[in-house]
């Protein structure tokens, strides 16, 4: 009796916690509302299963508890019941997987008009590189990293001359424009994570990974590292400021002094 009651209380408590707790996702600031919708669908389906299973258990524990004279029912299997349950489970799983895969396709298909932004992680700070007026990022190689070239940008590549380099500072992005973040690491694996953007992807040394998103509201958001990268991991923070287009352009103009060519004049 007590056991059945406690099982019921676990269900009631869990559902109440879910509905009433102050801890929920951060208000979204990107185009990935679909991800949130898929999470909500998943919460409904899995929540229903959890409630049903535990309540059924509670019922069994109460109804079929040992009493003098009770004998259990002998029934090794029931093919119909098992088939039926398998089918229902299959449908539930498909209902979660299908929207998930559709959204994933969008998630990895970068729009043609996305602006490239390079994000470089190293123990334990973030640096950024924006393409200059030519709209192209120049080539880079970790072996070129030096005191005056923290991002290892190629001096030979003409595309790199007008690239704007922001070391350890804050990244600015225009609102409403798709961004393709090109992710590089100079040392260990890091992870570029902005909770409000629902964006997260590892930066792996030796390769360039990517993620894309469109900021949908202005504001200041924190960049966290989400992959253990050594003792300084929790301190590896950055900031992204999403601005209106005209504010962003004004800021971009002001960065003309921070082109790669200006920062490392020996390149000329």
């Amino acid at each position, binding site marked *: 009796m007590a*056991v059945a009651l406690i099982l019921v209380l*676990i269900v009631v408590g869990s559902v109440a916690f879910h509905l009433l707790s102050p*801890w929920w996702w951060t208000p979204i600031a990107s185009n990935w509302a679909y*991800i949130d919708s*898929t999470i909500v669908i*998943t919460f409904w389906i*899995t929540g229903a*299963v*959890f409630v049903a299973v535990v309540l*059924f*258990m509670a019922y069994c*524990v109460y109804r079929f508890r*040992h009493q003098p004279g009770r*004998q*259990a*029912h*002998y*029934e*090794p*299997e*029931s093919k119909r019941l*098992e088939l039926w*349950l*398998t089918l229902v*489970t299959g449908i539930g*799983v498909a209902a979660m*997987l299908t929207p*998930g*895969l559709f*959204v*994933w396709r969008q998630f*990895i298909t970068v729009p043609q008009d996305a602006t490239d932004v390079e994000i470089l992680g*190293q*123990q334990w700070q973030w640096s950024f590189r924006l393409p200059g007026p030519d709209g192209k990022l120049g080539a880079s190689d*970790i*072996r070129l990293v030096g005191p005056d070239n923290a991002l290892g940008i190629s001096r030979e590549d003409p595309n790199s001359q007008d690239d704007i380099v922001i070391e350890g500072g804050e990244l600015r992005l225009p609102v409403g424009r798709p961004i393709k973040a090109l992710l590089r690491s100079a*040392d*260990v*694996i890091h992870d570029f*994570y902005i909770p409000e953007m*629902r964006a*997260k*992807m*590892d930066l*792996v040394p*030796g*390769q360039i*990974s990517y993620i894309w998103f469109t900021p949908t509201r202005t504001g*200041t*958001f*924190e960049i*966290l590292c*989400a*992959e*253990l990268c*050594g*003792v300084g*991991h*929790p*301190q590896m923070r950055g900031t992204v400021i999403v601005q209106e287009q005209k504010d962003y352009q004004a800021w971009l103009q002001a960065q003309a002094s921070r082109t790669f060519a200006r920062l490392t004049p020996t390149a000329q």
Partner: protein
Amino acid sequence: MVDVPLGHVGPVPGADIEDVELYHPHSWITKYVFAQDAKVIAIQYSLTALSVGLIALVLSWLMRLQLGFPGVFSFIDANAYYQFITMHGMMMVVYVLTALFLGGFGNYLIPLMVGARDMVFPYVNMLSFWVYLLAVLILIASFFAPGGPTGAGWTLYPPQAILSGTPGGQEWGIVLMLASLMVFIIGFTMGGLNYVVTVLQARARGMTLMRMPLTVWGIFTASFMALLAFPALFVGCVMMMFDRIFGTSFFLPAIVEMGQPLERSGGSPLLFQHLFWFFGHPEVYIVALPAFGIVSDLISTHARRNIFGYRMMVWALLAIGALSFVVWAHHMYVSGMNPYFGFFFATTTLIIAIPTAIKVYNWILTLWRGNIHLTVPMLFALAFIVTFVNGGLTGLFLGNVVVDVPLSDTMFVVAHFHMVMGVAPILVIFGAIYHWYPKVTGRMLNDTLGKLHFWVTFLGAYAIFFPMHYLGLMGVPRRYYEMGEMSFVPPSAHTLNAFITIVALVVGATQLTFVFNLFWSLRHGKVAGSNPWRATTLEWQTPETPPSHGNWGKAPPIVYRWAYDYSVPGAAEDFLPQNQPSAQAVSGEAHG
């Protein structure tokens, strides 16, 4: 309608081989120390693993103290914190859960449950334990080595695992960790081959595969999987050891270490992740499948009802085992691997939910129309279902590739895997110990202490890990020594963290009642008799309790029926032991 061939009394095949002559120990040392009796080896494995578990428990306290009360305990700095989480994780997954389920329960239960006199290779079995102990000692030694143990996280991802920014990366820590894992795998291989071969070759007459208890099926499948999965980890360890000591570049591309370019190029950090998770995901099921098997037997025995859908249960175990080898990259959705892998691995991962769900249904359908005795083992089995269902369902979030993006690497993941492969299997281990302790020692564990232990552990663990999901949903990353200021985290989250820590301290301390119970009941427990739970499986039918060397006295048992003849209509008792011929107790109509 219920006429299935499972319990059908067929002719028992003649003995293929003569009863074997066992190795006979001649001294106390060969009987209890360098023992070749699987039952003694099982106890050696179990006590060692439980001791490592206590160390890992203390480590979890220390990390929770830091998370709940950041900055209060000056001896926990960032280095120490990362060392604690790394050692806690590796110890629990490999040195506690794997060793306890396979080395402990496998050794004790396989020979007894299949009606064998011992494992087929007793000497190798003995070596297996001593090599395991060596692995544990190497692991513990890293606490005393210069620089301390590695703090790379239990996943040991290179390059950081072998660089100076990580505790133990350029010192002894990572070297000892890799060495210990390699030694562990060598030891496990010796044991694992034994378990598989014993199940296949040494079953008693009449014990067909489809009459085996699900405990044996679970341990057998898990051992088979471990033999296939651990080599991937072994290879990864060898390569990383080479990278660390000989300067090779298996996992290191051209990188910079603290501003200085390193003389490495061409390696792939992702290669290690593939090797690690090719082992790591099956590892989850290497822990889970024995728990599935054991819990099936606990539920059936204490609900006095046959396990529902036995054949489906066996096929589900095998399907999960096979599928678990093609889902590994769901740990790597945001690792920077080719994103098109996401479609494949999300699909396989969600498909694995189907056989897993079937198992859950069959457990609760076994309770349905049963005759449920709420013994301590049964309570733990019920709690297992609650936590496993909870943790399994959150797996559907993380397995669904796009949902994983916001949740990956957050506290949601920590909550999920602790619920599903931490709390759930450990509840089964406790239930199993309360269940089989009478066979091992001849005495019952104390019931009152057991219930206290159960309620605090179950409700406490649920209170620790259920709310933790919501921290992750909010975006709090895992493996943060301190949250510090995060603009999106309200102060109430810190209160929640403090609450979790306090509950963790209480739950941890309560485990002492269990340890006390283990020792106290050895002398003062109620005398159990040979079959206190009135169970059908062979281990309860031994001529002596505890079973002596060789298990079966003069002749090994002959098996006439499956393992689940509980409450058979017309039978005199509500259970029919597997070695009981039909004529004695079953009416003609019922199939026994």
